[in-house]
């Protein structure tokens, strides 16, 4: 598969991706001059800094737009600020400076109550370390976001079971986290993130702890979700995983150093698209023989 795309540096004015399709994609995530610093004084760590401001020499912050329906892979070495960025996108953390607009709404102006609504309704978050609730069955885990959304018990159960069967775990619905393998736990976490059908799926190294087979399974699910129009942002260290994305960002020391587009925002993600094409071709072949 030929890689198409262009490098784009952060800080440049965000232009709509007109070259990839006729429809004008809408940015669902807009971050503007975002910085995140830990600690004070000399010990300050700028986890997110962006390029330095040419005039003041201070960090100018990261600016970035992510379109609705896009599938973005964030790569970078350890400590480059990937998780920091993801936590801010997931409304789990707040930036030191800069703005984060989600669906055009400035998240910084939301109160606790509204933030919990955003986390519950708009965002599905998959953690690097699963983060399942201990001593709670897989089914109850997956039901949790629905319960907080106020969904009735019967409906909740139905949807949670559907999500579990999507990740191939309907047999394990009664198991507690300590009775599940690492890959199964990760899949429970995926089911929990997608059960509310959020418009945005944020995954922090969802395959970091998985073997190649489980990785493929999880990626297939994520590909499928993106194909149905969900925006996906995914952190990974592995090129095989990044191949699934339509756009790849590389972070170094809190700066975006490259931004490569691998596929159009509209339509299925590249790997899935290739599979579909193959299948279609095979179908034609078979059809031709008959």
């Amino acid at each position: 598969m030929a890689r198409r795309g262009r490098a784009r540096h952060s800080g440049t004015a965000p232009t709509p991706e007109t070259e990839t399709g006729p429809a004008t994609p809408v940015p669902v995530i807009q971050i503007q001059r975002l910085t995140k610093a830990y600690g004070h004084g000399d010990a300050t760590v700028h986890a997110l800094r962006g390029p330095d401001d040419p005039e003041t020499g201070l960090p100018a912050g990261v600016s970035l737009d992510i379109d609705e329906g896009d599938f973005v892979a964030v790569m970078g070495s350890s400590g480059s600020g990937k998780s920091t960025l993801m936590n801010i996108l997931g409304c789990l953390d707040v930036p030191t400076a800069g703005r984060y607009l989600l669906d055009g709404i400035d998240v910084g102006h939301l109160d606790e109550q509204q933030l919990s609504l955003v986390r519950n309704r708009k965002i599905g978050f998959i953690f690097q370390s699963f983060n399942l609730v201990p001593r709670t069955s897989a089914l109850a885990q997956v039901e949790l976001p629905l319960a907080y959304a106020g969904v009735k018990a019967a409906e909740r159960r139905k949807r949670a079971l559907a999500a579990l069967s999507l990740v191939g775990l309907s047999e394990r619905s009664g198991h507690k986290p300590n009775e599940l393998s690492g890959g199964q736990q990760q899949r429970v976490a995926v089911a929990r993130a997608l059960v509310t059908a959020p418009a945005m799926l944020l995954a922090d190294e969802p395959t970091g702890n998985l073997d190649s087979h489980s990785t493929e399974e999880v990626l297939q699910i994520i590909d499928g979700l993106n194909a149905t129009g969900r925006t996906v942002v995914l952190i990974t260290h592995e090129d095989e995983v990044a191949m699934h994305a339509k756009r790849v960002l590389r972070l170094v020391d809190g700066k975006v150093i490259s931004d490569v587009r691998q596929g159009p925002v509209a339509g299925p993600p590249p790997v899935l698209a290739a599979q579909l094409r193959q299948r279609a071709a095979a179908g034609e072949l078979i059809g031709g023989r008959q």
Partner: protein
Amino acid sequence: MIFWQILRFAIGGLAANKVRSALTMLGVLIGVASVILLLAVGNGSSAAVKNSITSLGTNSLTVSSGASFGGSRSAATTKKLTVADAKALADPSAAPDIKSVAPVVSTSATAIYGDISYTPGSVLGTYPAYFETANEKIAKGDYFSADDVLNARKVAVIGSTTATQLFDTDDPVGKSISLGGTPFTVVGVLQTKGGSTGFSDPDDVVIAPLPTVQNAFTGFSSVSQILVQATSADTTTQAQSEITSVLMGTHSLTDPTKLDFRVSNQASLLTARESTTKTFTVLLGAVAAISLLVGGIGITNIMLVTVTERTREIGIRKALGAPKAVILGQFLTESTLLSVLGAGLGVAVGLIGSHFKVVGIVPVVIPSSVLGAFAIAVAIGLFFGSYPANRAASLRPIDALRHE
């Protein structure tokens, strides 16, 4: 969020840590139950003492022979109490504050009725005035009369314990018993006084006219005690000094520090004992309060540990979109359930326990101690459950998740 969804989260949280939940509840239970029970025991013992004070009569005085407290005992000058002493005390001109006088001899003898033989706690010989002074009331039949005393009739009034021992369910009145070989006709049965404070049973007694008992058992030389009734509870002190001066006269004594008899005011003795039991109650209450405090510290500790340990879980729940109020509600409900269930069981255990005699004392539950212990336990549980939960629920999700 529906309330009972929160309740389900809370029950789920408790069920996830069954042993710890049970231990916390046990801590509260022990605290509450011990407060209720220990205070009930203290209260019960002072109630028993109060009971025996009223059963003795507050204006009765007992004169017995022997040196008074602190007085030096000199065998040579000791003169026994006699019926003559009693007669001297009964003289209203010498002792205006004395209402009645009853000399008492006591002995012990075996009573036989049919083929039942039983030795009552004591056999007393006295005058009819004894009954009023000692606050003995008749249940069946009648007291013996002054006429019976004058004629030294062989009649007897028996206590309720003696009656059951000898006659079981039969009516003793009119029956004849043999007391140390002498036949006596039972003319009356006394009401049960109860209130045995661990000493002899006041209902295990046979009371007969003084001369009859003297004739049959003790001889006429002396009496064991003289029971004196003052005209009222307020005049007992005057009556006491009148007794002293009259008896000093009859015993020809001059030195009030060297008496050969002793006048004791039963009521004041018992008042002293009541104050001892009050101290006892206070002491028990203090022990109980400490155990409630320890129970409370137990809840506090476990709540702090529970919430701190579950900070990550709180972070996960917040990341999934749990509003702060729901998380607070869950933890508050958990600690409410724990402390209410624990305190409720503690009340039950305390109330059940108070039905059993504890070292001879029938516990009497103080209602306010039940309410107080329950309320304190629940309040401690709520406060120390909500405080750390509030702290954790106020964290940013990422900070809660990073919590080790």
